[in-house]
């Protein structure tokens, strides 16, 4: 049994290795548009942002099987593109992140911020919860079960704006 869990750990570890790609905003938008009934929980973070790193486990442990419709977590790093190999990939390996991780691939940071949400000041952490028909934006850090409760209420449709 012990042997099996070690094997599992090793496979999760190696799975995380190669999974960080660059992402443009239009690619992200297309992904959400094609997502049908999927609710995307998109967290904007950076390896250098301590409160972002602190809240990552809340995103990692979102219990997606609770919901009738799919929930997908996407971690979008605002680290510089040039730091993909030196900072982001080693971080993902070290923390064994199992969510999808991307690094933003946009030249114009301001345009990116505006398009994600016009109320975003640019502070991170920030989170966008997006489904085909709805977008909710949060410029804040989530504590403990707050994210779980929020996603639950949004996906179950009893969350009113």
């Amino acid at each position, binding site marked *: 049994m012990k042997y099996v869990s070690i094997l599992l750990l090793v496979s999760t570890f190696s799975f995380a290795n190669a999974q960080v790609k660059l992402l443009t905003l239009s690619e992200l938008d297309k992904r959400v548009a094609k997502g049908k009934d999927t609710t995307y929980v998109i967290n904007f973070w*950076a390896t*250098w*942002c*301590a*409160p972002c790193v602190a809240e990552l486990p809340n995103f990692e442990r979102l219990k997606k099987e609770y919901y009738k419709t799919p929930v997908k977590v996407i971690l979008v790093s*605002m680290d*510089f593109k*040039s730091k993909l190999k030196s900072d982001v990939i080693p971080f993902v390996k070290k923390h064994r992140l199992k969510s999808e991780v991307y690094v933003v691939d946009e*030249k*114009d*940071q*301001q345009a990116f*911020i*505006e398009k994600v949400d016009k*109320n*975003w*000041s*640019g*502070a*991170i*952490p920030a989170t966008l919860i997006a489904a085909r028909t709805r977008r*909710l934006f*949060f*410029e*804040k*850090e989530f*504590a*403990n079960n707050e994210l779980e409760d929020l996603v639950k209420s949004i996906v179950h449709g009893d969350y009113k*704006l």
Partner: protein
Amino acid sequence: MMLGIMAKAQTGYQVGDIATDFNLNNVDGKNVSLANYKDAKGYIVVFTCNTCPVAKAYQSRVEALHKEYAPKGYPVIAINTNDPVTSPGDSYENMQKLAKEKNFSYAYLEDPNHIYTKKFGATKTPHTFVLTKTAKGNEVAYIGAIDNSQDLLSSNMNDFVKNAVNSLLQGKKPEITSTKAIGCGIKWKKEGATE
């Protein structure tokens, strides 16, 4: 809860508003107000901190702004936004240490209980407000980033703050009055939180 968050994003100064003066403790132990700068034509108020990597990346650029524009009438005044309990690296002692180490030639003030951070509407570090003296008071002329190249690698560098101040010095309105950039969220004081 959602409404509260939305409201927070909307508060603070907009371009054209008149900024309040403050009286805050500098790293040298003396209080600093805008009114202390008798010859100033305006101010470059930078909300920042000791610990944020983006703020750190801008430290030498903030120093250069002060060196260039204080003699022209636009001194830099830096204000630490962060609560020293939530973020011990941002304590007054650590502000003093940093200012000494890096030889800050500008004022670096503490803002206990985030009073002016909230009043101005700073949401991250660094977050810059350029003020210009008018008959009505200190008018907010620019809000946002210092430039568009945090990593100094941009091929089309735009020095937003310099350009804004240069316009003001020529008696013109800045061409670009507000910008956005990625920064560190403010480390707010936790109200009786025991997490």
